[in-house]
């Protein structure tokens, strides 16, 4: 009996320890952001002197390509500035109470002028916020458990205005008059799947909007943005295509980096 209450007591206190750990994770993340942001600022200043920096980074990045259609790259290539802000550490006081996982991505697009295609210069900010209230979801995302969404949160955003290239007028959801015709439906979906469709992504209507929009956001915040220099230099390797380890091993191992193949392109799941 005594043993049991001792055990039960220990288990209760261990539960508190989990809370402590979570708080520490948050503090560590905050510490990281606070230390890193000045460096990113300095870096972004320097990047202004590197022509085509983001174009090189984004075309080098194969995971990014999984989210983006080939035809979108023409406009992705217009991105000449990316900045990410984490409101929890920004100097500007805001009324909103921010969490460590909240961030804003700012894109600057250069103008594109072609005979048959026009795309204006613009700056677009897409804000991502962690949400825990699952009642805001129109439906539960596939393969997701409501309880873990409640516990760990999920990324959401608001639709943000962006000017589409004239070439995309046909698939621009705002310009499709009849969304119920077969043609209208098809074009609407094509638009939602394009890179511009991502700017409309809210995270609340799974299956109806840009597929895996949260993953693309996280790819920017956790990989592309922090490791941009790495991707830039990778693109400049002299041994552009040295047989990599996998290949050299092939004789002995007989397997390739097939795990690449199991990753699927981030595709829409319209239902």
């Amino acid at each position, binding site marked *: 009996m005594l043993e049991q209450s001792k055990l039960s007591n220990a288990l209760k206190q261990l539960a508190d320890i989990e809370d402590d750990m979570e708080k520490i994770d948050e503090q560590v993340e905050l510490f990281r952001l606070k230390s890193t942001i000045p460096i990113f600022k300095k870096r972004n200043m320097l990047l202004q002197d590197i022509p085509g920096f983001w174009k090189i980074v984004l075309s080098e990045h194969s995971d990014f390509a999984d989210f983006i259609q080939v035809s979108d790259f023409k406009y992705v290539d217009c991105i000449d500035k990316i900045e990410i802000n984490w409101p929890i550490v920004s100097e500007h006081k805001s009324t909103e109470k921010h969490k460590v996982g909240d961030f804003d991505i700012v894109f600057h697009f250069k103008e594109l002028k072609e005979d048959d295609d026009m795309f204006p210069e613009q700056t677009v900010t897409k804000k991502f916020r962690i949400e825990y209230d699952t009642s805001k979801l129109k439906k539960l995302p596939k393969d997701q458990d409501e309880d873990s969404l409640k516990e760990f949160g999920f990324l959401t955003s608001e639709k943000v205005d962006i000017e589409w290239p004239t070439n995309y007028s046909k698939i621009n959801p705002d310009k499709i008059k009849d969304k119920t015709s077969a043609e209208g439906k098809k074009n609407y979906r094509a638009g939602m799947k394009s890179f511009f469709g991502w700017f409309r992504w809210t995270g609340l209507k799974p299956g109806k909007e840009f597929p895996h929009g949260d993953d693309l956001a996280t790819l920017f915040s956790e990989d592309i943005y922090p490791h941009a220099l790495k991707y830039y230099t990778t693109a400049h390797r002299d041994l*552009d295509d040295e047989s990599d380890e996998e290949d*050299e091993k*092939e004789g002995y191992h007989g397997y390739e980096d097939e795990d690449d193949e199991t990753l699927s392109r981030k595709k829409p799941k319209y239902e």
Partner: protein
Amino acid sequence: FSIAEYLQSYFPQLDGTHFEVFHLQSPSSEVESLYYNVGDLNDNATQDTVVKAEHFIAVSCNKKIFFAIDILIYLLIKVANSNPSKSGNVCSEEVIVELERHLFISKADTNGYCDIKLSTKNITRGILNFLLDIDVQHYLKNVIRLRKNNYAGYDKNNFITKNTSTKQALQILAQRLDNRKDLCPETASKVSPPFTTNYVLANGIQNKIMTKISLFTRPEPQYLFSESSKNRNKHILSGDQLLHWWLSIIDSLLDNFETSGSFSGDNTIKAKVKIPGEDDSMIYKRYICKLKHRDIWEVGTIYGDKNDLSHMVIPLFPDDPKTRFIRSNIEEGRDGLKLKAFWNELQGRQEFNLGIVVGVIGVSGLWKKKLSEDTLTDYSIYIPPTKKKFKNLKRYVIGEEYDTAEGALDSYSNLSEYYRKLSLNPISIIGTYKYSAEKVYDGSSIVNPVVINNLNSLVVHRKKR
């Protein structure tokens, strides 16, 4: 003539329906060896060169990709020095080069999104014939060398490789601007292509080429088009049907091998099939008997003699169960395993013992034809500049999900958009092959010479930093 003319007889003639073929190929690259080299054996083989290239071919109809096939080509260029005392110091007069070609059918699949009924068997046959007709010189013009052979003496301080840190790389780029005024890649220290490939390019291959075809058949719901088994129009073959399907294709290829004439033992045509764990006479009766070239076919494999050491005679292909078994044997120190025991034990492995018919097919012999790029104006193969780009491009097909037709549409639109950007066109084909009315739809789904579960393979992957 054109590649479209070459292939049209394998595509069905159906009210002018036209097909588009996207033929991608990885850049050729040198690989270490086709066999498991243990210890000192390496030294005897140092002058041999193995060049590998991967073909990935996707076929569409009505703007939907519906069929794809993945095939690996290995060229073994062997150097035989007529004056052994001078080995290691080779000059071309003293060298006899032997060339052997291995074609490994890795994966083929359909997804059921072709609007018309057709025989993918014929298309597969056409593609295989074409690949076998390609002049091997095609693969040798540009070869990416093994790292140990490439840039062997490069100056680490001026050269950006995968081992260069980001910081160093940035410094090197800055230095380049200061000295040379550009960021262009370093080219000065590139070493020349392997002697052997140059030799072949210069002298050509006079004889018909020793050619080996390998594949492994095992039915799976999907190989290249993930989620496509959810498409009710996809017809999935059983192991038995699949083996018949492939045997009939491979059998038809035998038409183009030298089957008679005076040549030495090793060049004699061989066509073998084996179902590990299955009785020989049953295999003969059930699978070989009905084939056109049944006189050539035998139960067995094309790899060595029963007393040979298995790892010395069985080529290693990516994603292949034989290969996995060899690897795990070697890792466990069982490098003395004879071929006969190898096959006996192989059948106990997971890929083979689930009561599914799995077949090992092999052909070896002299291929009769050869199409040089002169006779065919243009192979119409797109070879991306790097292997990475090849893989990324392939991903537009194999990375899609095919539970709905949208996957087939999107993979088509991404590939064709990519081609458009490069000002390339897919091969456009209007078929000329006429079906007899009832012989349609013999296999919407196919093949997978690959196995899918390597639980037993005990491969050690190291975690990357």
